[in-house]
């Protein structure tokens, strides 16, 4: 079983909390987490609703493996209609909160309506109550965390919280749990704040015990851990260098989007790379990186724990930033660095700290700053707009100031909080927003990695690397190497990655296991934990079902084929250097193949046959 089989439904308008049974029929079709919560969302909200209105719902959801000994079994997701995109949003996070929710006996929390006053949800096992957020509303995540802990007097409680940015209406605010893990993308934190919910505070001491076949489960999870341990990437590469090892890889490959994607290679890449994080600093002799750390249940431990040089301009006389906290992951380092042209590692780390402190998606934030810099370069925005800041590429001081402004929702930070699409539209240059469906690209230029262009264009939550990470194949050779510069075969590759990813995301485990695990490694773990006979085939079909369900939500929300697209720059301005020099992304070649591979019509709508095959009604 492994499901707690219980949902906590929180009606914020009424101020009520109640328990209801999990729909086990749906659980057999959608498993949990991303799949199952998306099913609930699709069934319960109008896809056309205002994402920031009371009709939207916000679902915290765990998977059946969350809170178990399966490696990385600590994940949870937040599912809602995203304000940045207007599309279905699902943001996945690690840390400890997800497992704690499960330990308290809940598969999901569904927030609906809107609280008249700021509140937070306190869960202690089967007891849940809405409590006044007086004293924490208006505070950063880090400040609120301290206050909540002091109040509840339990060092073991786990907290997910939104920062000041979300309260100020920034469109890409994250939900931060355990101080530096984030349900990061698409503005799920903004939705939470729009409902007047500041935090979810959880303590679970009941544990997860309803495993279908405990002995088989222990055997299957041990085998899974062995695969992770013996795999060179998950066993050594990720723990040692984290995701940040990619900075130099992608730069060498000529696919590191630089200065709002005007270039595909960044001269400063090595200075902000995973290798640089290991280098002792000149000033204090300490490296940026203190240690690696794991999320709940994770035997990989790719997390970065970092410090900033106390004498760095960004933290001078600010001792609250002198300790360790979550360090740079590759996507964040890229967005805060290459996208803005800033190569100051400590400045990036500071910006990353602030993103965690006040709940910002660093990818969208960095990319938006990059867009603002290009607008400034082009004269579309001026010092009058920015409050006197010269928004020049490469200026670390601009980056650190910008993050403070967005975090607090002050001054030009309000404009930056719009995200690049709304910002560029506001200042008359919509083409300068490097986004799909309103969500900014992560750290792979689709001119140098063709498959990623298709993955971005078709991602149901807007541009995203976590929906179909073909980089694994096109650059890293996992599971098999494909040529990043050709389009042939990419439609099938993207579809396969998207479907498998949806299955991983529905299980309660981390997508990073997929560097070593295939669904063949995952299926036995789920099968030993859950009733229903879980094979690789069933999981793959589930992944495809989830993908199509998300797509249909977006279609009903008003998205069309025209939204499965890339910004003009990427399909018309050729890469200027590196292996992809002279190339654009050839989305037009791949998209029809992709629709066909998916069983969709030419407009990208699932056909009746496809819907029937997948059991979508």
């Amino acid at each position, binding site marked *: 079983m492994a499901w707690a089989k219980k949902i906590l439904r929180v009606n914020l308008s009424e101020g009520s909390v109640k328990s209801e049974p999990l729909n086990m029929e749906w659980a057999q079709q959608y498993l949990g987490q991303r799949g199952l919560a998306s099913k609930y969302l699709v069934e319960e909200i109008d896809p056309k609703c205002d994402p920031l209105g009371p009709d939207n719902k916000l679902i915290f959801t765990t998977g059946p493996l969350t809170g178990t000994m399966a490696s990385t079994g600590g994940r949870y997701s937040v599912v809602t209609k995203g304000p940045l995109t207007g599309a279905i949003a699902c943001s996945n996070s690690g840390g400890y909160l997800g497992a704690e929710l499960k330990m308290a006996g809940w598969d999901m929390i569904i927030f609906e309506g809107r609280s008249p006053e700021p509140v937070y949800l306190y869960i202690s096992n089967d007891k849940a109550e809405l409590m006044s957020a007086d004293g924490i509303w208006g505070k950063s995540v880090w400040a609120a965390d301290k206050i909540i802990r002091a109040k509840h007097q339990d060092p073991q409680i786990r907290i997910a919280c939104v920062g000041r940015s979300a309260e100020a209406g920034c469109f890409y605010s994250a939900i931060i749990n355990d101080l530096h893990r984030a349900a990061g993308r698409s503005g799920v934190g903004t939705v939470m704040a729009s409902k007047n919910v500041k935090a979810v505070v959880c303590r679970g001491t009941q544990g997860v015990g309803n495993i279908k076949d405990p002995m088989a489960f222990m055997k299957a999870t041990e085998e899974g851990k062995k695969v992770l341990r013996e795999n060179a990437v998950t066993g050594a590469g990720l723990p040692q*260098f984290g995701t940040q090892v990619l900075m130099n890889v992608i730069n060498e490959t000529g696919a590191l989007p630089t200065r709002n994607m005007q270039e595909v290679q960044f001269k400063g890449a090595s200075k902000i790379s995973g290798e640089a994080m290991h280098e002792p600093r000149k000033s204090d002799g300490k490296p940026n990186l203190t240690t690696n750390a794991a999320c709940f249940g994770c035997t990989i431990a790719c997390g970065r724990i970092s410090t900033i040089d106390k004498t760095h301009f960004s933290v001078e006389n600010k001792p609250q930033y002198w300790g360790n906290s979550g360090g740079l992951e590759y996507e964040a380092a890229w967005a805060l660095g290459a996208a803005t042209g800033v190569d100051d590692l400590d400045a990036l780390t500071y910006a990353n700290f602030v993103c965690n402190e006040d709940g910002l998606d660093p990818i969208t934030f960095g990319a938006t700053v990059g867009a603002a810099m290009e607008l400034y370069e082009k004269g579309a925005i001026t010092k009058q707009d920015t409050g006197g800041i010269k928004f020049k590429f490469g200026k670390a001081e601009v980056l650190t100031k910008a993050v403070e402004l967005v975090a607090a929702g002050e001054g030009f930070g309000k404009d930056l909080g719009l995200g690049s699409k709304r910002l560029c539209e506001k200042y008359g240059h919509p083409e300068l927003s490097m986004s799909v469906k309103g969500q900014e690209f992560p750290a792979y230029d689709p001119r140098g990695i063709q498959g990623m262009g298709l993955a971005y264009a078709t991602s149901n939550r807007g541009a995203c690397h976590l929906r179909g990470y073909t980089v694994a194949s096109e650059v890293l050779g*996992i599971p098999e190497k494909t040529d990043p510069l050709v389009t042939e075969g990419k439609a099938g590759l993207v579809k396969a990655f998207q479907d498998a990813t949806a299955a991983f995301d529905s299980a309660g485990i981390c997508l990073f296991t997929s560097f070593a695990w295939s669904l063949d490694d995952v299926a036995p773990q789920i099968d030993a934990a859950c009733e229903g006979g879980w094979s690789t085939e069933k999981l793959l079909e589930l992944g495809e079902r989830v993908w199509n369900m998300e797509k249909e939500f977006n279609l009903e929300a008003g998205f069309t084929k025209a939204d499965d697209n890339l910004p003009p720059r990427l399909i018309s301005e050729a890469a200027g250097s590196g292996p992809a020099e002279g190339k654009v992304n050839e989305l037009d070649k791949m998209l029809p193949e992709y629709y066909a591979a998916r069983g969709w019509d030419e407009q990208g709508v699932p056909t009746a046959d496809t819907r029937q095959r997948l059991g979508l009604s």
Partner: protein
Amino acid sequence: MKITLKLFATLGVYLPTHATGNVVELDVPEGTTPDEVIDRLDVPGDLVHLVLLNGVYLDKNQRSSRVLKPGDAVAIWPPVAGG
């Protein structure tokens, strides 16, 4: 002829002392292959996972056959991933 060698992540320790960052310029005889460069620096073969020649992926069987040209850049990683 001169080529550029870049050894990243844990391979950084195999760089000669005069390397800056993860990069070193090497003088190699004409006709040198990537595998010969790797051998010359005693980089353990099982750690050589991802090899890019001027940013382009080199398959395992190309590493001993491809002849380097002056100015070529060879970048090498152990097994890594991210995202």
